[in-house]
């Protein structure tokens, strides 16, 4: 039996003004019938480009296939340029960001039925019936209503379900999923992965799952292909590859996975005295809606939260999107005004004496942001950015500033020559290091890091986590680390605060919380983390109804 998809010797190059750069280099890959193949690698490794090439959807005319073949059931699709017959009908594709890939002005149902009408020749009524049926299959509770809805009326997870329904509309044999869960919360990610696995069994799909998360691969795939710099560096059966990786890069990827590292030794913290930061009955509301003659409503982003953080602690605040964790962090720093309640910084009250407390906060606390590129001024060199902070703070004498910039760059592991470079010429990880250097410039006693590794590749994530661990090891720096990724928090933080719908649902030492969560919500969050060990399945191993039926 021929493999449904066989790629051999595939090269894709970027050609512009006589210059040629190879983005895919001699790629060979086979997808067997009914299997899920995990394609892992970091951003820029060419995994998305490979799948775009298979679909004939190269993002620019400057990109060209220079060599190789793509065979679908033995037939070379590159030779005949037969993509029009293949897309949708034989290969379906789902994307990382369903929000930008769904047409916002067209009903979800119509986006499904347009494929049905085109490829299967169905009439409008028949297409509608089949589309409604598909929406039920991907888990919509009210399919007729989902049919009539627009993308913006759905949550992220529902949008991805709709995207899957669109891709499955014409019964493709192969489904390519490009980072389908990266933009989703862990519990939703677990649901979508479960759905994909169920659909694979129900429909006999062969699937390529592109991801940067080895945990996702370990949980879902049969085989793994690892890409680096446009080449496939290693391919193998999942367990064999994870247990005994051959290539150095694969070993590095596995070692970087946050579920692998053991929790580091933590500094003993004295919790007898007064806390450094005390949050008292904090309430933050945002007005939503409302207009000229209508009264708006208030969204309660943070509800009656009380929290104490002692000097030297590393506290992880975790929760899903919309849980209020970023708002809490911003309010602690006085960047977002509190509706009621108070934040005390070493006893100084933000509510009672806002000006003076803010001045103290500005010199003793710093924030590291999620997006390393957009939080650095693109027109200033890293050195100029750091010098600006040092001058504003005024504690470093002018003749010491250059030397201090050098020390800061040393601290975050950047070469001193980076002082003369602009953010544009830096990679994501280097930018984030520069962002941390800026936070350290004020010599802060507290750093609040808001999802500061979420946009980075796993190996870079691991480096930044190591950097934070080194910085906090002295016991002088207090770290409040906000993340949706529980594995990272378990790795780095000694204490975990779990937020849900604006409230703190659990607060305690990470060793205790990860081993014995007290609240069902925390337990569900932890169970949803895709572990890199394939024998520790998602959601604590409860099998799906299909897996149960198939069990001997």
């Amino acid at each position, binding site marked *: 039996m021929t493999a449904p998809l066989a790629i051999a010797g595939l090269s894709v190059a970027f050609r512009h003004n006589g210059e040629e750069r190879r983005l895919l280099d001699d790629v060979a890959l086979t997808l067997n019938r009914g299997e899920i193949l995990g394609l892992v690698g970091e951003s820029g490794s060419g995994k998305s480009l490979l799948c775009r090439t298979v679909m004939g959807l190269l993002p620019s005319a400057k990109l060209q296939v220079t060599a190789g073949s793509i065979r679908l059931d033995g037939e070379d699709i590159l030779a005949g340029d037969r993509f029009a017959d293949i897309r949708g009908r034989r290969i379906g594709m789902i*994307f990382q960001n369903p929000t*930008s*890939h769904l047409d916002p002005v067209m009903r979800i149902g119509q986006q499904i039925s347009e494929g049905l009408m085109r490829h299967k020749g169905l009439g409008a009524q028949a297409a509608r019936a089949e589309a409604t049926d598909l929406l039920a299959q991907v888990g919509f509770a009210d399919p007729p*209503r989902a049919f009539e809805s627009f993308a913006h009326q759905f949550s992220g997870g529902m949008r991805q379900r709709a995207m899957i329904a669109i891709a499955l509309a014409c019964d493709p044999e192969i489904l390519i999923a490009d980072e389908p869960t990266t933009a989703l919360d862990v519990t939703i990610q677990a649901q979508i992965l479960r759905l994909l696995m169920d659909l694979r069994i129900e429909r006999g799909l062969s699937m390529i799952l592109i991801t940067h998360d080895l945990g996702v691969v370990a949980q879902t795939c049969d085989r793994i292909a690892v890409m680096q710099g446009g080449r496939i560096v290693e391919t193998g059966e999942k367990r064999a590859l994870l247990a005994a990786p051959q290539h150095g890069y694969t070993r590095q990827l596995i070692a970087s996975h946050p579920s692998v590292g053991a929790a580091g030794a933590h500094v003993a913290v004295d919790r007898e005295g007064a806390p450094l930061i005390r949050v008292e009955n904090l309430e933050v509301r945002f007005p939503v809606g409302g207009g000229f*003659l209508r009264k708006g409503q208030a969204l309660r982003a943070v509800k009656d939260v009380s929290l104490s953080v002692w000097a030297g602690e590393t506290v992880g605040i975790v929760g899903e999107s919309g849980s209020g964790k970023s708002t809490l962090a911003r309010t602690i720093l006085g960047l977002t005004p509190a509706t009621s309640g108070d934040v005390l910084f070493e006893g100084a009250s933000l509510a009672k004496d806002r000006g003076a407390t803010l001045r103290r906060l500005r010199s003793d606390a710093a924030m590291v942001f999620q997006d390393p590129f957009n939080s650095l001024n693109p027109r200033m060199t890293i050195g100029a950015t750091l010098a600006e902070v040092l001058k504003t703070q005024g504690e470093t004498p002018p003749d010491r500033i250059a030397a201090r910039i050098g020390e800061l760059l040393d601290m975050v592991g950047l070469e001193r020559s980076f002082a003369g470079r602009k953010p544009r010429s830096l990679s994501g990880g280097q930018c984030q290091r520069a962002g941390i250097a800026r936070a350290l410039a004020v010599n802060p006693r507290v750093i609040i890091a808001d999802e500061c590794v979420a946009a980075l590749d796993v190996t870079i994530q691991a480096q930044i986590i190591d950097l934070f661990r080194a910085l906090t090891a002295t016991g002088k720096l207090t770290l409040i680390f906000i993340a949706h990724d529980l594995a990272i928090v378990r790795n780095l933080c000694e204490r975990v605060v779990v937020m849900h719908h604006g409230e703190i649902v659990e607060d305690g030492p990470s060793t205790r919380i990860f081993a014995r969560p007290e609240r069902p919500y925390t337990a569900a969050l932890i169970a949803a983390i895709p572990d890199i060990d394939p024998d520790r399945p998602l959601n604590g191993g409860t099998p799906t109804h299909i897996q149960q039926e198939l069990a001997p």
Partner: protein
Amino acid sequence: MRPPRTAQRRGAEGLHRYRFILFRPLQFLPVLLGISVITFFLVRLIPGDPARILLGTRATPTAIANIRAQYGLDEPYLVQYFFFLKNLGAGEMGRSTLFKIDVLRLIATRIEPTLALVLAGVVLALLIAVPSAALSARRQGGAADHAVRVLSTAGLGFPSFWLGAMLILLFSVKLDWLPVSGYGTNLGDKLVHLVLPGLTIALSLSAVLTRSLRAGMIAGLGSDIATAARARGMPENVVFWRHVVPNALVPTVNLLAVNIGWLIGGTVVVESVFAVPGLGQLMVRGIFSRDYMVVQGVALTFACATVLINFIADIVTVALDPRVEL
């Protein structure tokens, strides 16, 4: 997941996005009041006395005083404004000193050619802009694209009085295909008379629209929405007309609304060039003869039209883009 709802309820949910139609007109009142203040006092800042202009240079002081009293022009401006508002409330805009008839009736007889002209301009502009933007965006960098870009830049640069005169020269004088000026009496005749002035408006309006549409379409062709549609096997034509164009139209509708407001003012020039007996021409005559009532009335009509068009654009935007709530 929310409990299922009936189809009827879904319809109501769609309609609630149009609630703003009920309360938005209330917001027009202060806007229109402001416009009335501005037009009323601006007209009176123009040097010259309407009574003197009406009666000529050899009029006696008594005659002038009589006319001034007859039209209430001898009252202080604030009193005049009060009566202007009071009359407006009763649906009257006063009497024209020049035409000796009620301004409202005068506007009613002149409004049709102007409306027809604006409508012809907008329809022709869309007929030019949508295909040329589509041609340009789908062959970006090609010969057609360059031609469209050069022409639309040129269209922005040419003033309408010059463009109108050139069109008359070509189509009426040289080729003798279309009438030089005026406005017909029956429908067919009127349409023939509207072609050249309509085209004059359309050429400059389509330049603005083409550029906006082209930019939106190019962005749309490279967007994730288009990629996703291609990935589910939609041919390029379907991707373009069903997914790219509707998304590119949304911002263009608002641009069109802003430009129609500007266009209404522009009819003053075009109507003068083509001798179309519309509101723009009436406005010009009103200004030259210091016919305060006429100028006020026409300015207020133009302002109402602009406000109304923006209101319609809001409704169209809500209809085109399900995400918008006003």
